[in-house]
């Protein structure tokens, strides 16, 4: 290829000229050798040591990750509570020697309110003392059942019937207990929607395992009254 040959000739000429110029320059070799004799080669960088340390760090982090993955993690969420735990007494009132504990206040299908509660104290009795209804503010109150428990408490299942137009959420009803010296203790309850199972659980919870209350019987009475 003539073009390529021409290029080669030009390159050779250019380098020939450079070679001639370089021939006039004193070699740097003596100076380099003199200076090199006064210095020493630096030791190699500790790449191996650093690599070893980095590798060890990586292996350690992997080991920790694997160990953490295999270690059973304690549950962060609480385990499902026992059904009775859902009906634990969530409101109690203690005045003098009178103690009232509300276990559940639940709406019935008709809009009435069933309250499972207990009272305790010297001569303390739930009001009303029989199954008849008494007026209590904007409600009519009656007790479906009252069972004396072995620990001295009285488990009461009350039925509260609101007057027409009354909103229990805004105007909560109350339950009442009379002590031996005729003092009356009242406690407001806030009803909520609850299933029959929750109601049964509340009765069992109030009963405290003493089997003083017949859940089925109370449920039957509730059904009978609210029907």
């Amino acid at each position, binding site marked *: 290829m003539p073009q390529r040959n021409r290029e080669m000739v*030009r390159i050779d000429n250019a380098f020939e000229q*450079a070679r001639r110029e370089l021939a006039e320059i004193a070699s740097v070799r003596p100076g380099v050798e003199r200076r090199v004799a006064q210095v020493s*080669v630096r030791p190699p960088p500790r790449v191996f040591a650093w690599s070893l340390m980095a590798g060890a760090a990586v292996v350690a982090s992997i080991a920790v990750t694997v160990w953490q993955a295999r270690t059973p993690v304690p549950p962060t969420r609480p385990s499902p509570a026992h059904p009775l735990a859902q009906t634990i007494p969530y409101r109690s009132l203690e005045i003098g020697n009178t103690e009232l504990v509300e276990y559940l206040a639940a709406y019935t299908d008709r809009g009435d309110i069933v309250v499972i509660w207990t009272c305790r104290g010297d001569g303390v009795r739930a009001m009303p003392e029989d199954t008849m209804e008494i007026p209590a503010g904007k409600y009519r109150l009656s007790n479906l059942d009252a069972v004396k428990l072995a620990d001295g408490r009285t488990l009461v299942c009350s039925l509260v019937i609101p007057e027409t137009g009354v909103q229990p959420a805004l105007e909560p009803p109350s339950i009442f207990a009379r002590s031996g010296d005729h003092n009356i203790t009242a406690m407001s309850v806030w009803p909520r929607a609850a299933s029959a199972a929750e109601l049964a659980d509340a009765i069992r919870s109030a009963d405290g395992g003493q089997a003083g209350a017949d859940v089925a019987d109370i449920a039957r009475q509730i059904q009978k009254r609210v029907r």
Partner: protein
Amino acid sequence: MVDSDEDLVWRVRRGERNAFSLLVERYEQPALLVARGILPSWHDAADAVQDAFVTAYVQINRLWSPHKFGAWFLRSVRRQALWHRRRRVVRERHMVSAGTDAAYEAPKEIVAPVDVVSIIARLPEQECVVVTMRHLQEMSVMEIARVTGRPVGTVTKQLSRAYARMRPWLESEG
């Protein structure tokens, strides 16, 4: 039998200063050309090359691939030359004129073939190595391949690429 760069580097690492002298002999002229492409005089270029050789000797254990000594060293030369140029500029800026001295005779600057050195200085180090070995030291492609530890095909390819880069300059000369 010509020693390869890799062999010489390993010998230097083992403490043989003679091996480094062989490397100096091999790369002195390419380095001078590269430095001259950056610096205004051969004298400055020789200083930069000398510094670059000493630095290369001290830091030869930092060279990861001994067979790439040529490219690594020319890169160092380029850095040294740039540093010398910067230093020279700073020195000239701070120079205070004290008048002319009749007895003082300025050293004669050798007129360099600036065109070829400038084009060499612009080539990538790998190509700079093969071109200078081929045309300045008149080594055959086989010898270049043996010295640099590269396959013959790679050397040929790098020469072709270098010629392609030099072509615009050749045409302007033409």
